[in-house]
């Protein structure tokens, strides 16, 4: 086999020289003089150069040689027009960079598999009702469903993640997820060190155990596997460490957790329906079971559970069952697709731009092309030359695009609002780079094809501009397409800007300017009794009020307008002298908030009628409430609500915080916003 071109050349020549020398010898033997014999040998051989060339060609895969030629030629012609190259590469780099950055975000949301084995069988299910934005099951219902279910090979629940404090030498606020003992096995997660907790450890009075997230294990425990078995202080209680979660572990809700602990569900109490624990429920479908079949199999259990729902509310309760992935990306799917579509449009505009540049350039090269055609260049070869040039351009654009994508991505992650699933994981990995390479290739073909397909004409040799017509039409078409795509993009961008403008200017019913907020949570281990907490906040209030630049100061259990706040079912609000009709529909949820008297002054919320709270109301044994205008009119149509007494009934997911007390309506405030409900 020949590999090197020179060696091949040399050997073919030597082989044929040998032939010639033997032929010459033969001629000499027949009596010719030496030089005549050599000439005769050459004559008999025929075209020596051609024979050598054809022999060599057997060994050279022809395309590699010509591709190298094409590339060489393209680079040489690029060097002659640096302005053209710079413009084209920058246009492409912008398009490719933007689409790469967005793809790396969208890929995580739409296409990549979740970090659970057989994630396509994981289901998020529960009852959807106005009292919570997420589907849930009450503890009692969950226990019944778990006993009866046949569709899942594993069925599990968790209570969600909440704040918890590492109360050791260096106190740290963490997020603790509380889950059933079957939670990790159902998701298919095995701890990398230690073990999952057992069913016995998940009992209400069992000694506490916990699994650490990989990050916490590294940051606080030096990634030391011998930490297992040791005890830490969590919320002032001793907790034994039994395992470390894998690095890529994520909760199915995509919320952050540093620690996974047993939820220690008190099954007896739940079954008695004394205390309604909200659980989030997951299942792993048996192989071959479809979501529809599973859904149908849960219908009897669902109907059974409905009996415990007040009759008026039943119509508003639904059984909801989704594949985990669909549920996770529910809100972001459409946004992702729109964003992705937009950047693909940008890329198309860039391609059209570069195609136009290439066309302009090929117009300038018509004579050159015609000459090459006239001296025998094959048309296919010329097309390939153009495509080689455009592919070189697009790959240069792709390379620069990757650099740009890196910057775009960093910016995107930095400015993006919270709540985009897996955004922080978005990175330029090999999948994304493959996408970029593919995009560059497609872009190169797209804008390379147009000039390549224009048939060069021999008439161009004459120097008259005869062949302009079809090219002009193509360029016009490109410009039209470019304009059309731009209009789509601009319209979309305009609509988005409009929505943003409207959101920005939405009246909140309060003045957010110059308001600072902070959240303080007390460790229940240190402040077990409400009075202690009350004293703490009173001290805090006194001290903060003495700060020089504080004009007004208020405390509330949630930050308006839409932080997680208490909510109660409208139709369960009892008016004095008028018992609640349990056959009514829920009427939606009413958001309520516990505040200190200065709240209204601090946020500039006017009291329309009646009065706000005073310091003496805080110490009074009576309970007072201020209603929004809208609620007041809804509750007491045609009457003045002031002075009336109401009693909030069953509430949302923080049942125990609302006491069943009578509240006197003190005042009315404007109602400008509504808690978003699904």
């Amino acid at each position, binding site marked *: 086999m020949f590999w090197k071109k020179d060696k091949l050349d040399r050997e073919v020549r030597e082989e044929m020289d*040998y032939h010639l020398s033997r032929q010459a*010898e033969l001629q000499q033997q027949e009596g010719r003089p030496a030089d005549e014999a050599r000439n005769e040998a050459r004559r*008999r*051989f025929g*075209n020596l150069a051609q024979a050598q060339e054809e*022999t060599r060609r*057997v060994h050279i895969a022809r395309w590699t040689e010509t591709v190298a030629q094409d590339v060489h030629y393209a680079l040489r012609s690029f060097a002659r027009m640096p302005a053209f190259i710079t413009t084209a590469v920058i246009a492409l780099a912008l398009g490719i960079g933007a689409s790469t950055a967005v793809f790396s975000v969208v890929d995580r949301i739409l296409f990549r598999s979740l970090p659970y084995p057989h994630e396509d069988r994981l289901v998020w299910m529960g009852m959807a009702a106005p009292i919570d934005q997420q589907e849930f099951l009450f503890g009692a219902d969950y226990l019944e469903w778990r006993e009866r279910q046949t569709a899942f090979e594993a069925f599990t629940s968790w209570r969600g993640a909440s704040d918890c404090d590492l109360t050791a030498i260096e106190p740290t606020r963490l997020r603790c997820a509380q889950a059933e003992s079957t939670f990790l096995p159902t998701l298919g997660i095995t701890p990398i060190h230690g073990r999952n907790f057992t069913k016995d450890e998940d009992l209400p009075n069992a000694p506490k155990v916990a699994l650490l997230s990989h990050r916490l294990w590294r940051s606080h425990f030096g990634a030391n596997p011998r930490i297992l078995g040791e005890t830490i202080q969590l919320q002032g209680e001793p907790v034994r460490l039994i395992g470390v979660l894998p690095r890529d572990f994520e909760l199915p809700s995509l919320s952050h957790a540093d620690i996974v602990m047993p939820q220690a569900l008190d099954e007896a109490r739940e079954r008695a329906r004394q205390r309604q624990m909200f659980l989030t429920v997951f299942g792993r479908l048996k192989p071959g079971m479809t979501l529809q079949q599973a859904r149908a199999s849960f219908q009897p259990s669902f109907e059974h559970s409905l009996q415990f729902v007040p009759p008026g509310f039943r119509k508003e309760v639904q059984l909801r069952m989704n594949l985990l992935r669909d549920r996770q990306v529910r809100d972001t799917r459409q946004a992702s697709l729109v964003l992705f579509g937009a950047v693909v449009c940008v890329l198309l505009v860039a391609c059209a731009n570069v195609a136009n540049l290439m066309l302009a350039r090929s117009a300038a090269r018509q004579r050159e092309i015609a000459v090459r055609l006239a001296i025998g260049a094959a048309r296919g070869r010329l097309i390939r030359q153009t495509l080689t040039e455009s592919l070189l351009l697009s790959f240069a654009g792709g390379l620069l695009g990757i650099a740009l994508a890196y910057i775009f991505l960093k910016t995107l992650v930095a400015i993006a609002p919270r709540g985009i699933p897996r955004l922080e994981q978005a990175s330029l990995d090999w999948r994304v780079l493959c996408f970029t390479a593919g995009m560059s290739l497609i872009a190169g073909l797209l804008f390379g094809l147009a000039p390549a397909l224009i048939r060069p004409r021999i008439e161009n040799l004459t120097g008259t501009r005869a062949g302009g017509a079809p090219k002009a039409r193509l360029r016009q078409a490109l410009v039209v397409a470019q304009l059309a795509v731009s209009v789509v993009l601009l319209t979309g961008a305009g609509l988005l800007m409009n929505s943003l403008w409207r959101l920005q200017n939405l009246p909140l019913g309060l003045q957010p300017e110059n308001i600072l907020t902070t959240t303080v949570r007390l460790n229940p281990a240190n402040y077990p009794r409400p009075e202690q907490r009350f004293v703490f906040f009173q001290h805090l209030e006194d001290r903060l009020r003495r700060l020089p630049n504080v004009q007004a100061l208020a405390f509330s259990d949630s930050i308006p307008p839409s932080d997680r706040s208490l909510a109660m079912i409208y139709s369960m609000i009892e008016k004095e002298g008028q018992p609640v009709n349990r056959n009514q529909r829920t009427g939606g949820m009413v958001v309520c908030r516990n505040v200190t008297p200065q709240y209204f002054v601090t946020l500039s919320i006017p009291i329309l009628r009646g009065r706000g709270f005073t310091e003496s109301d805080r110490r009074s044994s009576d309970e007072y409430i201020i209603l929004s205008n809208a609620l007041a009119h809804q509750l007491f149509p045609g009457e003045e609500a002031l002075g009336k007494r109401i009693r909030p009934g069953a509430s949302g997911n923080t049942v125990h915080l609302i006491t069943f007390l009578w509240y006197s309506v003190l005042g009315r405030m404007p109602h400008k916003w509504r808690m978003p409900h699904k």
Partner: protein
Amino acid sequence: MQPFTNNLQGTLELLILKALAPGPNHGFGICQHIQTVSDGLLRVEEGSLYPALHRLEKQKLLDAEWKVSDNGRRARYYRLNAAGRKALAQAEESWEILRKGVTKVLKFA
């Protein structure tokens, strides 16, 4: 016997393979062999012979190596390998079909 469908281009290759059947030889030797054996009726053109030899080598029907020949110069010797022998047998068979077929067509008129 399968009907002959190949074109006539395989003829040179057949001659080369057959010429190498007795033993390894170089290009000049193959030329001479064919000319002598055919009583001067066939003469192989050098311009076609060498590309054909290299093609056969690339198709792995021939092995080639440089050896010092009888006149003391280095020559490229070609040798039939197992695949080459098989190809030769097939080519001979095809040729036979071609010969019979052509003869019958020519005799018909």
